[in-house]
């Protein structure tokens, strides 16, 4: 079976396991009332025996009154309603996270996200309902990320916010720090030179930029592409006479970087250590995007916590919450609990999952509680704070009137090891029902599927997701296998 064939079958059966929605239902115009024993709103006190009413994909009311009964009712007095977890940064769910081009601001994970990747399925199972998918750290400027929901068969279905931010990597494994930092700086210098050349060419009467724009399929005469818009915002450097250049004439390969400089896009800047933090902040200041910067930290980057606090930027923490250093003199290991440092410095921090399954965001929040972070702050670091960082605070992060109709129904305390997600409501639609989740039985109960074999699902280490979905489906795919062979 070819990869495409496998993907297609996989997609078909996944929707079966993960509750297929008819096109009418997808529109989000359904009405849903969720009655539960407890609502953890994260926007005030918990509500006992409450009802959440969702209409048109948005939460209409949250309270103890019975609400309106012209809706489909989900009644689970034994369950707890909880807002979805929010992943502030992830390099998973893509075909491959890195391009072989050093500076690629024009790339978009939209073209790389694989909607049926096992990762998204697992996100749903773990209750992660918004994920900022970003490129990896192997490019200087990796490209544009996208905030997605873990459900849907097309990128458009999944998208919460396109072009959420540019991925910038200050250091890259296996490359000298100096070379990589220089590559990032050069990207901005190249942008500036490009803009200067546009002005110069215009002065000399050349129309190469215009012809190039037309060649790239952009019309420089369209309103939004017209004159005077070539550079907006408060960039610390200006290009003289740029007003004379229609926006549409800016090379599309450079344009996203220009948007960053203009403050119209965010930057997720990967820092592998304290030294990278200093460089990242410098580059962001030099190019005017400090206010839009989120640092994605790794290694000993926490040692620059004072600088980060001073710059006022939020951070996404490395999945390893406990950083272990080897003392150079004694050789002993020294443990540092990283979220504790940032809490003390009053830096806004979001947590990252260690992996998509066993140590997802709930586990990370629980670990924070173990090390003394107050429970509400620990939970906020995987709900509200990442929602705010992704500029989706008005839609995600709590169960409140007006927010997206995203609800987890849990069978216990959100941070307990024995708790699991029973149902997921996304935009007012029930998109996950644990009792119908075939793979959760494979993982949890070891239910062996007939003909179980490795499958190309992107992550590579998973068992066949479709062989056990249904007996009929099994036979069918088996038969088509043979024909193909």
């Amino acid at each position, binding site marked *: 079976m070819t990869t495409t064939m496998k993907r297609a079958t996989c997609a078909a059966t996944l929707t079966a396991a993960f509750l297929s929605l008819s096109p009418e239902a997808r529109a989000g115009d359904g009405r849903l009332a969720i009655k539960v024993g407890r609502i953890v709103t994260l926007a005030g006190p918990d509500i006992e025996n409450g009802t959440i009413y969702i209409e048109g994909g948005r939460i209409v009311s949250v309270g103890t009154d019975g609400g309106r009964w012209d809706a489909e009712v989900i009644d689970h007095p034994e369950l707890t309603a909880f807002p979805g977890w929010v992943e502030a940064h992830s390099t998973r769910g893509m075909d491959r996270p890195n391009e072989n081009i050093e500076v690629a601001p024009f790339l978009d994970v939209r073209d790389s996200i694989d909607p049926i990747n096992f990762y998204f399925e697992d996100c749903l199972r773990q209750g992660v309902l918004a994920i900022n998918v970003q490129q990896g750290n192997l490019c200087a400027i990796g490209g544009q990320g996208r905030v997605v929901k873990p459900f849907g068969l097309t990128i458009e279905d999944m998208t919460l916010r396109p072009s959420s931010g540019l991925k910038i990597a200050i250091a890259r494994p296996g490359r000298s720090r100096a070379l990589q930092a220089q590559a990032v700086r050069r990207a901005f210098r190249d942008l500036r030179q490009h803009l200067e050349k546009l002005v110069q060419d215009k002065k000399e009467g050349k129309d190469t930029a215009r012809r190039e724009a037309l060649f790239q399929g952009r019309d420089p005469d369209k309103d939004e592409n017209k004159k005077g818009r070539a550079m907006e915002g408060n960039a610390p450097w200006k290009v003289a006479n740029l007003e004379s250049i229609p926006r549409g004439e800016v090379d599309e390969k450079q344009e996203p970087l220009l948007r960053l400089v203009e403050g119209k896009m965010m930057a997720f800047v990967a820092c592998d250590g*304290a030294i990278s933090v200093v460089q990242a902040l410098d580059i962001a200041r030099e190019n005017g995007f400090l206010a839009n910067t989120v640092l994605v930290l790794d290694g000993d980057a926490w*040692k*620059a*916590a004072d600088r980060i606090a001073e710059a006022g930027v939020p951070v996404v923490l490395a999945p*390893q*919450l*406990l950083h*272990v*250093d080897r003392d150079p003199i004694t*050789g*002993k*290991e*020294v*443990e*540092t*609990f990283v*979220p*504790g*440092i940032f*809490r*003390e410095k009053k830096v806004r921090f979001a947590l990252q999952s*260690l*992996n998509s*399954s*066993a*140590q997802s965001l709930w*586990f990370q929040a*629980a*670990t*924070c*509680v*173990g*090390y*003394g*972070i*107050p*429970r509400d702050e620990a939970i906020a670091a995987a709900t509200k704070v990442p929602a705010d960082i992704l500029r989706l605070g008005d839609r995600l992060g709590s169960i409140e009137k007006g927010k997206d109709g995203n609800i987890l129904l849990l069978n216990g305390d959100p*941070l*307990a*090891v*024995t708790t*699991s997600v029973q149902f997921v409501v996304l935009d007012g639609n029930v998109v996950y029902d644990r009792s119908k989740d075939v793979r959760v039985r*494979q*993982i*949890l*109960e*070891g239910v*062996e599927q007939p003909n179980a074999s490795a499958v190309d699902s992107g*992550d590579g*280490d*998973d*068992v066949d997701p479709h062989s056990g979905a249904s007996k009929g489906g099994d036979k069918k795919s088996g038969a088509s296998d043979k024909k193909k062979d």
Partner: protein
Amino acid sequence: MTFLSVALVALSVAQDAEPRAWTIQVERVYTGTGRNLEKGLVLVSAGKISAVTPGAGEEDDRPNDVLKAYAVTAGLVDAGVRVTNWQSVEQSKEVTPHLRVADTLDPFALDWDRQLRGGVTTVLASPVDRNVIGGLSVVLKTGGPESIADRTVKADAVLRGSMGSEPSAGNHPAFGRPTDFFSRRPTTRMGVEWEWRNAFFDTALNLNEEDPGRATLVAALQGKLPIFIQAWTTQDIRTAVFLREEVESRPEFAAAGMNTPRFVIDAAAEAWKEPQLLARSQTPVVLPPFPTAGRTRENSQMAWNVAKVLKDAGVPFALSSHGSGDVEQRLANQAGYAMAGGLGFEDALAAVTSTPARLLGVEDRVGTLEVGKDADLVLWSGEPFQPGTRVVATIVDGVLRYEGWNAVQGAAIAR
């Protein structure tokens, strides 16, 4: 920044080496004997537990140092800690039962501190499984004097060996190219099993009189020395169980009085597939760490309810972290993952304390909170094994060996 890292770190090893008299005051005493206390005291003197009583919070005039935490359990016991490297196995022969892994252990290694930070106080250290029968494992404390001999709880505790592909990994057949050290037996699973049977039969038939490992094999076949066999997959678990049944049923072994070996299957990830096989022969197992995505080493599949399946089938089992230094893979987390798979708290506690202690034959000293046992205690910030709970202090033989740091309050344990 150096200031920061010094000020905010966990204190990995406490300064005093002498056992102190402690009064441990907690909300929950989980003794591991079935008798738990709400608001209780554990008193420690001279390195032993001197009392387990109700009554936390009351003023008393004991001259003891007081430690307060949410809960206390016995120090955790890991029967599958993997703190050894390739230097722990002598590969000049496939079968080296007489070699002692204790001789290769480094008391200054960082592994011991890592274990203390996770609340593990007693471990079984084994040779790595590059030999079919690697040698003798040792049970020792993770904290104590910096000498392996002084930390040893039980020398020559078990005989360690392996089924599966690991002992033959890297070996290759001799034909086709010049022979070298690795063109040798075994190169297959068959070859690995043959080495086991060869060693056992030679011992029973007294064909290995000259072999320095003979006495060890005799003790093992007589059941005086447990045999820990690594077997991840169902296939290898079967091979191990059938080997045991062969020894029990063949007349050669009965005639020599060597037909009562005690097998323990280590790293039995796929034990859930045929629990009745293990129940039938009452073969205990040690489970490897839970994998995040279903599959683990030897391409075995480990279901998250494996511990519950074994419990229901009546198979004794212990959990293990394989010595991982990763916070999320520590032994206490493994107990939590077993609970996520349906195991009850008391059974999870037993699987990381009393059961491994019994499998290792050290249950008279460690594994439960009882008067007279070694003062190996773990103090917890909340309900043990939850990811939101951490080890705040570890006491070994009455000495405070690890004291955690709280990100907000500073000290993790109250005094």
